[in-house]
């Protein structure tokens, strides 16, 4: 089965119908940026579906469009054209305020450089998303944050500040924060890009544990070895998905597999 659709022969209705059970569905997503030198197309009509409980990795070189693609799925940026549906919601039809709350409840996002608030303890950082989205009773939030920090092996460091712990520990705390509101989807943009290989391995293990626990994980990386740990690896190049590989036992489909169908 191909995960890709031929843009010229399928209409939106067919894609809609086929992707009904998809947790994340992108159809014909185009993103153009304008700068002084003219117009530049970063995403050239992306069709993509991701199902519940899938662990999907996206690999590609710097500038291939992978971060832009993630920004389309998280709603951080808007497509020039095309449709993005995540967990039943048409993301880009929401206004910014509604999207922020929706995102806070449905997605946890992990970044390469952690992006923890430096002047708050790890515990306070993990409690923040619950405070913002008003999830869980106020008296339960600390208990839940402590449990999440324990789950990512940070017991005993809860009251430390981010700059006083290692990069790997900061990233583990960022994963705990991403899970604060128990979102069904975890999205990670180069989560191991700034970590040594042993620490990177631990972060990957945590993602695998989350998939086993029912989460859907989407990870962008340029580390092919880590990407192969996912159930499905997508290759993006020059704004297009040019290949898909199933797990470490899978085989890279021919670049045109989807389009030739």
């Amino acid at each position, binding site marked *: 089965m191909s995960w890709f659709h031929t843009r010229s022969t399928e209409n939106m209705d067919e894609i809609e119908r086929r992707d009904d059970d998809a947790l994340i569905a992108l159809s014909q997503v185009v993103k153009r940026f304008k700068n002084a030198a003219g117009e530049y197309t970063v995403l050239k009509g992306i069709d993509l579906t991701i199902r519940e409980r899938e662990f999907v990795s996206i690999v590609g070189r710097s500038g291939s469009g992978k*971060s832009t693609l993630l*920004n389309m799925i*998280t709603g*951080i*940026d808007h497509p020039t054209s095309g449709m993005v549906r995540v967990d039943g919601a048409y993301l880009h039809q929401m206004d*910014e305020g509604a999207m*922020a709350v929706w*995102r*806070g409840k449905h997605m946890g*996002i992990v*970044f390469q*450089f*952690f*992006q*923890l*608030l*430096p*002047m708050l303890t790890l515990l306070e950082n993990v409690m*923040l*998303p619950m405070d*913002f989205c008003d999830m869980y009773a106020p008296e339960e939030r600390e208990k839940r944050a402590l449990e999440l920090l324990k789950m990512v092996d940070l017991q005993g460091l809860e*009251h*430390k*500040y*981010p*700059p*006083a712990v290692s990069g790997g520990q900061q990233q583990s705390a960022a994963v705990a924060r991403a899970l604060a509101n128990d979102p069904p989807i975890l999205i990670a*943009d180069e989560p191991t890009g700034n970590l040594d290989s042993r620490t990177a391995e631990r972060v990957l293990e945590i993602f695998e544990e989350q998939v086993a626990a029912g989460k859907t994980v989407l990870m962008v990386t340029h580390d092919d070895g880590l990407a192969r740990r996912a159930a499905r690896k997508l290759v993006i190049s020059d704004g297009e998905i040019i290949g898909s590989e199933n797990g470490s036992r899978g085989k890279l489909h021919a670049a045109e597999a989807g389009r030739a169908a």
Partner: protein
Amino acid sequence: MRDVTKAYHTAAGDFYALKGINLTASRGELLGVIGKSGAGKTTLVNMITGVDRLTGGEVRVGGVSVHDLDENSLALWRGRNLGVIYQSFQLMPNLTLLDNVLLPMDFCGLYRGRASIERAYALLESVGLGEHVNKLPAAISGGQQQRVAIARALANDPPVLVADEPTGRLDSLTAEMIFSIFEELVRQGKTIVMVTHDRALAKRMSRVVELTDGQITGEWNRETA
């Protein structure tokens, strides 16, 4: 800083990241700290901000002995008196630029309600981001994110800014823009301690100390350089 030491306990024994630092910065000074990776620069920043505890010595900022404060008083004192800027920006990803700048005001209570929102707008305007206030950090460039981090650091109008490699992940043109904001802030009376390994930028600071293996091994004044 007086006789400041910081030891980390490791399996191989105690490791001293700082070995007796004596350092002063005057009001309105732009003090640079240079040194190689591993020299103790970030540890030194952590001692000034109090996000990590020292092993020996004393750190005084604006007359307050930082490490004598308990955790709660320290957090409040820090929020009102220090603005801290990091290499990787560390903005809250799911909050707009405006909300990121509002956060320190919400925590410290110095500016509230409408006054805090107007102040956040004005700060973002002052770093050239007035048109982007409702964007999320991931939707803007690294240089723009660092400018938001500066606006956030200024939220409670602290007298002192501490910056740990603030231009380390920026191209030279963007680094220049960030540094010129620092120069302007010093003209306005702020005191800035900036860690960097960019020697060209360091030359433009009023005073620079060099850190090697946890000790100060050199000092230059711009006047004497």
